[in-house]
């Protein structure tokens, strides 16, 4: 598990160094050149998106391992009502409450509310998703977490 995490983080570091170097050295003129039919910056952006998704999948896998589960399907019946909130550990309740207040939010937005690191919030949000309390929806590069109040009829 730790090897996976190190792998993802090293990849991220490598990528951002690469992105910075490309932007600095190549400049705008070079950026217009096409590599395999695409502009270099677009390729790099694509790589970054993929790395971010990979990172999120790793966080989910870590949470699944913690719960001794192999499937990514969240629990079907886990309404996030006040009694559930009360019975949660403090660190998760703080995250869940922030989602309740915001309605729909990214890990970044939650981190701003809770004054904790984005990576920490991302891990807690994924944990709440696996527990079946939150749903996740991806729009472009951003992953939004929300309480699905309406579909749980």
């Amino acid at each position: 598990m730790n090897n996976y995490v190190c792998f993802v983080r090293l990849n991220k570091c490598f990528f951002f160094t690469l992105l910075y170097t490309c932007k600095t050295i190549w400049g705008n003129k070079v950026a217009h050149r096409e590599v395999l039919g695409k502009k270099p910056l677009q390729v790099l952006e694509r790589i970054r998106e993929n790395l971010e998704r990979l990172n999120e999948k790793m966080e989910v896998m870590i949470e699944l391992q913690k719960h001794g589960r192999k499937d990514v399907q969240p629990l079907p019946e886990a309404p996030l009502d006040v009694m559930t909130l009360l019975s949660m550990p403090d660190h998760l309740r703080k995250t869940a409450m922030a989602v309740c207040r915001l309605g729909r939010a990214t890990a970044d937005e939650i981190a701003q509310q809770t004054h904790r690191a984005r990576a920490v919030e991302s891990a807690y949000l994924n944990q709440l998703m696996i527990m079946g309390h939150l749903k996740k929806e991806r729009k472009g590069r951003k992953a939004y977490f929300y309480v699905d109040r309406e579909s749980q009829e």
Partner: protein
Amino acid sequence: MVLGKIIALHSYKGGTGKTLLSINLAATLVKRGKNVCLLDLDFRAPSLSTILKIEKAESWLNDYLNGTCEIDKVLIDLNSGIQNKGKLFVGLANPATEAIRDISAKDRKWEMRALGRLLTLRNSLLNDKSFDFLIFDTSPGLQYSSINAVVSADLVIVVTTFDRSDVEGTKRMLRELYDLFEKKTEIVLNKALYDISPKSGKDEVQTRIKGTYQAPLLGIIPCFCDVSKAEGNTIFVQERPEHLFTKILDEIANKIDKP
């Protein structure tokens, strides 16, 4: 800087005076020029409709939480014939026995959706309708509807008395409910029995309350026979502007709505 725009009045035990304080606090804030929306979230024992002598409403708060109407349909304008600087609207809980039975049988999923609808009131009433304050009158104790109200509020006013079981229950709720939700809480001691003439009597009660609850004290309201005699038939602060009860409510409103 206000203490909170959404205020829930809550208590451990029933009969502490939450409803009386809710309506009189709302009226006091209205006198100060604020637009206030008072919502009866005590679905087990609705009483605002009786105090305000409103027998029928277009829609009840029960309907709003059921998702069958919007909040606009629930709110009743109480400003006709009253000269106030601000405006007072109320949303009532349905007092019919069938409605009380129906809401008592709701499951966790319904309560979760009800919480969602309460949380959206911040946008629909404070932001869109420009209310200055929302006041929630709640059921006592740890009931779904009251915890939903506590979670949705910015400030919880805990109404307590010197009754021993109420004191112990309130202490537990401070630790095991409000603290867990990181809620701002203020204590109001109601129906206090002490000699109000010498200042030392009040000081002693203040020290005792602060020591007991380790929480900020918003106000002490002595047990007034005049208030009891009114039997919940009037909005006391409007009827008796010179009464000490009215003055204490004014002080409380002043602390909430700090200039």
